[in-house]
């Protein structure tokens, strides 16, 4: 019988924190600035410059640690990780090796076999590097240090995952937790969340771990799943052929669906870490931790339970809505303004999701305000506009967050509730469509639909279909 293998996976996840400034200087972290316009002596590593820790970085790191059940290291400090590469102007990265801010945590994930814990080995704070661009023309490299010094946390898991599904459940869990904290937007595609996968295989039942490889350059959940499958196969093939897995870093090429070695343990990096003398130790008292604890938001699981109790909406809607902190905020605020939960949920589940998909946007990118959604719902509740006009208005609102009341007024989209005017139009439609009238009278119920449509067209869409129906039936 062929040997059965088990995959053992641990993750290193880098998350870019949503601070306004860099970790050790007052330069902006805003994305997309002209090269090197967000730089200073500190983040370009000039001799004599002095880094000072951004307090918000510390608060976010502690908040993520508490949310992932970590022990917070109350006496903690920064270390220098030494290596030479031009994206790192100091020739060392300020990171944490000896006393990382958070240790020994765990998160719960849902798997097909039920709930499971994934251990968090540690979370540490560090700085991002600059960006290198290769200039073919002059055969040199160009460096932009705008990203240099942008704050990151690195979340190192225990090797507790056994499949791509578990890895994705774990990443989703981290992403959701961190988004709810507002500590990062965690977008894999844009690099504000990056995952490196450490993977080894062993025969089912074996105690010892196999030799692991580290896979980099994974920027979507799909790429992660494919890379895990690919690496598992590659390692099995090696072992089956009597060869050995070499401990090395590999780069995943998602287009080709294969990976190649970047560097092996042979020329392993020796980072010669030592405590950074420029940064003083951090001592966190219990009061500080209590303060952060008190500010923790309601997380997704609690929110789902509360929605189930408080709102009469389907389980599926609850899952989708709470799947984005921003969407859940919009939902709750719109309901707080007096709209019926089911109606709010419908706008989010149907039209909002459709437009997000069409525009290739994330729920976090929703621009319309709860106030405007509430206004739109009350306009339809009052039958001031019919449902097709409402959809039209919603599209404009989705795009530009317009005030639907003003918009309907300005564009003259209000339903004509003047029965006399409507009756006149219905009479004209009946007179102009003798064939349909006859069909209806001969028992062809469907013919009335055509007459409603004709009336609506004549009213330029500004009529209540229920009322048209009523009048038609009355006049026929």
């Amino acid at each position, binding site marked *: 019988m062929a040997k059965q293998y088990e995959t053992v996976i641990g993750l290193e996840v880098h998350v870019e924190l949503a601070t306004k400034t860099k970790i050790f200087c007052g330069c902006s972290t805003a994305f997309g600035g002209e*090269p090197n316009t967000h730089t200073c002596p500190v983040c370009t590593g000039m001799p004599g410059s002095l880094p000072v820790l951004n307090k918000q970085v510390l608060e976010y790191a502690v908040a993520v640690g508490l949310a992932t059940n970590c022990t917070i290291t109350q006496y903690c400090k920064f270390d220098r990780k030494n290596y030479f590469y031009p994206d790192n102007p100091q020739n060392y990265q300020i990171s944490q090796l000896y006393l990382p801010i958070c240790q020994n945590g765990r998160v719960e994930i849902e798997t097909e076999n039920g709930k499971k814990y994934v251990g968090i080995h540690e979370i540490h704070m560090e700085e991002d590097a600059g960006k290198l661009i290769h200039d073919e023309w002059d055969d*040199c490299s160009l460096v932009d240090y705008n990203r240099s010094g942008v704050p990151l946390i690195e979340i190192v898991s225990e090797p507790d995952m056994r499949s791509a599904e578990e890895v994705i459940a774990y990443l989703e869990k981290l992403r959701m937790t961190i988004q709810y904290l507002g500590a990062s937007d965690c977008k894999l595609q844009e690099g504000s969340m990056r995952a490196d996968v450490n993977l080894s295989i062993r025969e089912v039942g074996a105690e010892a771990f196999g030799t692991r490889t580290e896979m980099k350059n994974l920027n979507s959940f799909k790429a992660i799943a494919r890379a895990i499958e690919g690496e598992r196969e590659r390692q099995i093939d090696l072992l089956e052929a009597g060869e050995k897995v070499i401990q090395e870093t590999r780069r995943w090429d998602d287009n080709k669906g294969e990976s190649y070695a970047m560097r092996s343990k042979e020329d392993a990096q020796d980072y010669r870490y030592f405590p950074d003398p420029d940064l003083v130790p951090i001592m966190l008292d219990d009061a500080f931790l209590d303060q952060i604890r008190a500010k923790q938001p309601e997380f997704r699981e609690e929110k789902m339970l509360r929605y189930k109790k408080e709102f009469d909406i389907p389980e599926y809607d609850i899952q989708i809505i709470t799947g984005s902190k921003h969407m859940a905020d919009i939902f709750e605020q719109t309901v707080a303004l007096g709209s019926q939960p089911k109606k709010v949920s419908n706008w989010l589940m149907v039209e909002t999701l459709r437009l997000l998909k069409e525009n290739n946007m994330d729920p976090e990118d929703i621009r319309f305000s709860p106030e405007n959604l509430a206004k739109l719902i009350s306009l339809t509740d009052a039958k001031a506009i019919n449902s097709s006009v409402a959809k039209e208005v919603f599209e404009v609102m989705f795009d530009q967050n317009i005030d639907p009341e003003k918009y309907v007024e300005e564009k003259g989209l209000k339903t004509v509730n003047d029965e006399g005017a409507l009756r006149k139009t219905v009479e004209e439609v009946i007179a102009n469509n003798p064939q349909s009238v006859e069909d209806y009278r001969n028992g062809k119920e469907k013919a009335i639909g055509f007459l409603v449509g004709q009336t609506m067209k004549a009213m330029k869409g500004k009529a209540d279909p229920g009322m048209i129906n009523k009048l038609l039936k009355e006049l026929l």
Partner: protein
Amino acid sequence: MANIISDETIEYVGILAKLELSGEEKEQAKKDMGSMLDYIDKLGELDTKGVEPMSHVFPVKNVFREDVVTNEDMRDAVLKNAPGEKNGMFTVPRTFE
């Protein structure tokens, strides 16, 4: 000298520090490192039981800044320190991993 630095060690440290040393320089570096380590070994003669490792010489802790942008665009000044400049970026010898 109690600490003898091997040829392999000096070669390895040279690689890490990206230094190319001549034979003569290597010999000198071996001597220097050996005597530095001898000096550090003196610490081993002391009883340090119960003494916390020191990471900072001053009794200062918790120095933070608020998350407020205080730096304006100072690209021109920063680029004055660059070995070379092109399109607002630092130029360095072609580098790739």
